[in-house]
């Protein structure tokens, strides 16, 4: 006889309770996104108030709009809260080592150029630990879409300061305020040669969805930077206890400036949060350049 607490027996698993109460349908599978999600893994591990679920919804809805053959779409993630995305999508997905999502994605693309490769990872993974891979994939104009969710800290490991933490940002490893200058992810990608760079907060979900749709259709290295609340790691140390408070902040400080110079879009702890589509140009991709050079070499 197990201990009983408000009708729940501790010797029964949650799954047994779900089945006994008839909640299985309610939890696993009636939502329109459920055909693209591994619903047996829901509810996901992301905290209440985290923007990652919204970012994932926008991505899946953009993916559905783009009408790609879903058997040819691969999602690659690194480590971190955002890295869990690869485990939640019902697509071919790849959960890689820390910071190395882009090298794995590059390998996939070069091994089978028919694939549509999407890298969905966080700022700590893509630009802090994998920063060198990030700039070199952009430099080569590798034909991958990178969705970088930026929450200004290492959320999963306890809210440590990273390379995107703004100056003065209080984190668990910078209790008196961060004194390092941060990376501006959009500017970094634009300076390294990305053909499509956009930045949106999760609050601007419709525009974000459209931007991801454009990025998916763009040949070459496309980056969508998503600014997302992290109430547990970052927000609560900045008077934003709930995810909703951070969304209010985005509402008040978000400035939409399409075509803005990426160098002037630095994000601070206060002041304007510039967002929009910064770069959209056409450039031959890595594979096009390679086959062109090969044809030239063979002619000689």
């Amino acid at each position: 006889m197990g201990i009983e607490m408000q009708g729940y027996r501790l010797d029964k698993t949650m799954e047994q309770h779900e089945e006994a109460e008839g909640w299985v349908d309610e939890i696993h599978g009636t939502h329109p996104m459920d055909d693209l999600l591994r619903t047996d893994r829901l509810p996901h591990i992301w905290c209440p108030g985290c923007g990652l679920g919204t970012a994932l919804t926008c991505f899946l809805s953009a993916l559905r709009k783009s009408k790609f053959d879903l058997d040819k779409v691969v999602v690659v993630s690194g480590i971190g809260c955002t890295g869990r995305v690869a485990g939640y999508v019902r697509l071919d997905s790849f959960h890689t080592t820390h910071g190395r999502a882009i090298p794995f994605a590059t390998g996939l693309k070069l091994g089978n150029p028919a694939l549509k490769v999407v890298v969905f990872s966080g700022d700590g993974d893509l630009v802090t630990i994998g920063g060198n891979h990030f700039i070199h994939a952009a430099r080569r104009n590798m034909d991958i879409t990178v969705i970088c969710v930026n929450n200004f800290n290492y959320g999963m490991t306890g809210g440590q300061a990273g390379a995107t933490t703004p100056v003065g940002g209080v984190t668990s490893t910078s209790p008196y305020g961060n004194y390092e200058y941060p990376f501006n992810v959009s500017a970094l990608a634009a300076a390294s040669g990305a053909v499509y760079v956009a930045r949106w907060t999760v609050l601007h979900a419709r525009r974000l969805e459209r931007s991801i749709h454009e990025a998916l259709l763009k040949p070459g290295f496309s980056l969508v930077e998503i600014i997302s609340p992290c109430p547990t790691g970052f927000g609560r140390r900045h008077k934003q206890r709930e995810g909703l408070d951070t969304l209010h902040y985005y509402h008040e400080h978000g400035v939409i400036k399409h075509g803005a110079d990426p160098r002037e879009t630095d994000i601070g702890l206060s002041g304007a949060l510039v967002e929009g589509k910064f770069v959209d140009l056409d450039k031959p991709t890595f594979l096009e350049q390679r086959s062109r050079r090969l044809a030239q070499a063979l002619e000689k």
Partner: protein
Amino acid sequence: MKYWREPLDLKDIRVPHGVIHILKERCKGCGWCIEYCPRDVLAPSDEINTKGYHPPHVVQADACVSCGLCELLCPEFAIYVEETEGEVVLYER
């Protein structure tokens, strides 16, 4: 909503109506859908789900125009809208 004159294309405009479905057991009570619903259809409820959160409930079912913002913003895949046959009257004559 009342205007000083009747819009000229009033007869051609059809405002869709939606029915909201809430998967209560998935909800983590972040409140984004309640805050950003443009028609104030949702409100926090006193109900508690198995995880101990308060899922929203529908208070103004007739007002929903099926914009789908709650569905897009919800981080938990816990709410969705189904468009129905009906119509929402936005303008009073």
